[in-house]
């Protein structure tokens, strides 16, 4: 039976199942196949804080959404076109996000009385007509997988486990994905147990063939490759990109990298990734807590390494005192905060942008530091390098604000040429800089205002520094009022003096009256909304802040060029407050704190209102 093939320009698929069903892996594989095909992609994993909540319950549902298209896309998609629901809980938890007419592929084997009751279904939704708005494809995923593997010498449990590969096979068929990489992946993953390689491949093929054969799936879809710049690509998550960016910074600075970290969701993967790259002279230390982690990183920085610490909200709260010390010591240090929903423990696996205040203001005394934020998964790579540039050039702590959304989300990344990356080499102090061969640890470079980085081991530069106020030039302890005033202002000035690129405005025909200003991970949804509005003839301008401290020099004039400035944030208006205070611009905050990224649609409708009311 030959199936009709229909062309689509974009599709959003959400795989949803129990925490134990392997949905993250399934989504990853589908993404990888899709990448091979050359679509543009954006993904959004969403999983519970519990490791493996009780099977079949709503809190146990884990999902992975992938958006792919034949043009360049900016978000993982507002609403799925297809939902794969491995059990009743997955169906129930995700239904509200599905627009009418979407496809739902359900694993009927899990729709038992017991499982239905567990999630509060009185009747079986597959039978009571409640799903009539959608196109439901009931598939006995488990039983068909087990059936297909009857000849394999594996346990029933292992056979059942392979059902995610059956589902992947089916979806791969539906969207005509190339699957060679999945086969290789399975061979590698189960290398130690060949029987599982065979079984999983068989399950995958069974799913593929099922699509090919069954009448239920009358149409097969194709999404053509996107037009993307030529080059070598890989799909990458923000956390991995950030880790690789740190390695790149070390390589380009010709400095060892020292990461002090304490595990915390959603930042731990940076530690995991970096600990694999020792060969680049990268040392990772899992410290006893966040304070020790940044302490060790600072100690390493004092010794001449590129010191880094990675964490999330609760950990950032603990690092303030040491960041303040690093500010007093004027040493380079990277502090990565992968933000999650707060306050307190909050919702560890959900995203948020509410640590900006903490990054800018969360230290006692006047303790300014540089702050930057990446805007997409792959941008985490470049943001890490930029953070290192600032830290090394200006001898200052730099806070880098990623968040759960881009940390776990992924997108295709055009691999850079390593030698094109910025040259980050630094010069350590080697000789005395004062009169009579003395060394003045706080004598500054007149241009960068940076003090010398004089690492232990350098003869003749022995000196003592600490967290007490220091006299200008000599660094000796000083309680002199005028010196303190001078030093406080100098520390502020040296952050202000950091050279950062001008902010760019995306205002294609310069006709916009409304500027949408964002920072961090909202770049994608804001960009998608602006595009959609422009396509509809409503001109809006977009500008995205990468450097949050210091801010670009041209920002003020950009802001003042527009009648209205709107600032969407996943917090209660933190950047908006800062912009208002600095530039006295009546910026309108648009806020949402749901632990989820904005959808392009909601931003579009909000902006439409603003544009119409200017």
């Amino acid at each position, binding site marked *: 039976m030959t199936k009709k093939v229909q062309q689509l320009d974009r599709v959003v698929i959400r795989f949803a199942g129990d925490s134990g069903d392997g949905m993250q892996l399934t989504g990853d594989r589908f993404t990888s196949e899709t990448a091979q095909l050359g679509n543009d992609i954006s993904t959004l994993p969403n999983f519970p804080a519990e490791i493996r909540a009780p099977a079949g319950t709503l809190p146990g549902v884990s999902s992975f959404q992938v958006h792919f298209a034949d043009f360049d896309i900016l978000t993982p998609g507002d609403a799925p076109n297809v939902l794969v629901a491995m059990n009743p809980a997955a169906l129930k938890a995700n239904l509200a996000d599905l627009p009418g007419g979407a496809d739902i592929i359900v694993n009927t084997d899990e729709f038992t009385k017991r499982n239905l009751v567990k999630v509060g279904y009185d009747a079986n939704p597959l039978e009571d007509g409640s799903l009539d708005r959608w196109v439901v494809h009931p598939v006995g995923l488990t039983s068909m997988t087990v059936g297909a593997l009857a000849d394999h010498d594996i346990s029933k449990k292992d056979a059942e486990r392979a059902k995610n590969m059956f589902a992947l096979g089916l979806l791969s068929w539906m969207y005509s994905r190339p699957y060679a990489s999945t086969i290789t*992946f399975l061979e590698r993953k189960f290398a130690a147990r060949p029987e599982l390689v065979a079984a999983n491949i068989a399950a995958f093929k069974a799913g593929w063939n099922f699509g090919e054969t069954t009448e239920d799936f009358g149409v097969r879809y194709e999404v053509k490759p996107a037009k993307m710049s030529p080059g070598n690509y890989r799909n990458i998550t923000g956390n991995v990109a950030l880790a690789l960016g740190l390695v790149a910074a070390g390589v380009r600075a010709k400095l060892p990298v020292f990461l002090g970290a304490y595990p915390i969701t959603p930042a731990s993967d940076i530690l995991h990734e970096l600990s694999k790259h020792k060969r680049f002279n990268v040392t990772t230390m899992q410290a006893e807590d966040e304070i020790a982690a940044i*302490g060790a990183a600072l100690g390493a920085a*004092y*010794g*001449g390494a590129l010191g880094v610490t990675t964490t999330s909200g609760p950990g950032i709260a603990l690092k303030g005192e040491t960041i303040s010390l690093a500010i007093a010591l004027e040493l380079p240090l990277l502090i990565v905060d992968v933000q999650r929903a707060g306050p307190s423990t909050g919702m560890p696996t959900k995203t948020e942008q509410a640590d900006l205040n903490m990054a800018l203001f969360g230290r006692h005394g006047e303790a300014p530091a540089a702050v930057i934020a990446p805007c997409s998964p792959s941008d985490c790579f470049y943001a890490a390098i930029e953070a290192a540039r600032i830290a090394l050039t200006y001898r200052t702590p730099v806070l880098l604000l990623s968040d759960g959304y881009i940390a776990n989300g992924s997108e295709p990344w055009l691999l850079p040429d*390593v030698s094109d990356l910025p040259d980050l080499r630094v010069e350590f102090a080697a000789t005395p800089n004062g009169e009579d061969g003395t060394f003045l640890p706080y004598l500054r470079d007149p241009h960068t205002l940076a003090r010398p980085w004089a690492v232990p081991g350098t003869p003749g530069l022995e000196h003592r520094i600490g967290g007490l106020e220091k006299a200008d030039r000599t660094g000796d302890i000083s309680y002199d009022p005028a010196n303190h005033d001078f030093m406080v202002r100098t520390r502020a000035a040296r952050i202000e003096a950091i050279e950062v690129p001008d902010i760019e405005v995306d205002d294609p025909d310069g006709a916009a009256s409304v500027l949408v200003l964002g920072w961090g991970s909202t770049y994608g949804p804001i960009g998608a909304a602006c595009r959609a509005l422009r396509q509809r003839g409503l001109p809006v301008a977009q500008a995205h802040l990468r450097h949050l401290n210091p801010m670009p020099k041209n920002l003020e004039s950009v802001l003042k060029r527009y009648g209205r400035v709107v600032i969407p944030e996943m917090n209660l208006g933190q950047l908006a407050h800062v912009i208002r205070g600095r530039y006295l611009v009546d910026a309108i905050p648009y806020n949402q704190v749901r632990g989820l990224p904005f959808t392009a649609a909601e931003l579009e409708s909000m902006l439409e209102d603003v544009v119409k009311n200017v």
Partner: protein
Amino acid sequence: MSEIQGASPPERPRTARNRTSSGADSGRQGVALTLTAKDFKSDQEVRWCPGCGDYAILAAVQSFMPELGIPRERIVFVSGIGCSSRFPYYMNTYGLHSIHGRAPAIATGLSVSRPDLQVWVVTGDGDALSIGGNHLIHALRRNVNLKILLFNNRIYGLTKGQYSPTSELGKVTKSTPAGSADSPFNPISLALGAEASFVARTIDSDRKHLQGVLRSAANHQGSAFVEIYQNCNIFNDGAFDLLKEPDTRDAALIRLEHGSPITFGTDGEFCVVHPPGGFGLEVRETASVSPTEIVVHDETVTEPAYAFALSRLPALDLSHTPVGVFRKVSRPSYDALVRTQVQEAAAKVTDPEREFASLLSSGDTWTII
């Protein structure tokens, strides 16, 4: 691959380091140099109270340093906050006066990434055992290559006289006008419970003994924990007088010497025995026991229960206080293990940029043309 690539200062002395696990630390041992105590005095005016025990410790350390044979620039003193923590300012070496309690953590990062340095930590009873307790026990368990000098004056000096985790129960201080309600730590027991490989105690006023202990600490691979009883003449004057006054010290102070029977008193008239069946140690009159009953001190006993038993000897009133090296056993340092992993991996890479480029393009990649 050295610990600092590329941009290091040209004159920086480098020592050969092999890549075996113990070898990774070997850069810390230096060659004979002709330095004197004066070379270790910085130009900073010392600002402790007149009469403070810290002066004696400073002088002892400064005059001990030359025998290490390590150039000044390869020595770093890291401290927290407290009177004692001002120490680094007065040493003409590299020095970092950090924040309260965090010196062991900061020093760990430094030591792990710079095996060519010798890193000393100077801390107080509040700095190390109150706010910094966790970093201390973790440094000890990891066996980081640090020489940790804890100046124990059993009081908070810098904040003007509150009780500390080593103050005796019932101590009346500014913050405990009705007497403190928490019984103290025994720093030696705590260190042993935290798996410390080197544990010692000494006294500010006995320069020779102090330097003996420093010597032993300096050549230990891994964490060397040294408790130094220090008099704070302003807020806890005379805390250790029992161990210093001519009429009491002989009966109270037990000098441990590796390989020797533990006797003390004016004429060795007291000794330490290990009653059969028991786990603790007891003090007896030497004349009343047979010489074979006297415990012969062995700092190298693997089983920490011995050193632990020794640490329980002093009643809180100091009536029987062992000083010297309680324990000195060998196990790999954290730094060495970590450096070995990194160095072995890095040794395989000749061109990091090219290797990095190939890392980037490993795994599932695709090409758009």
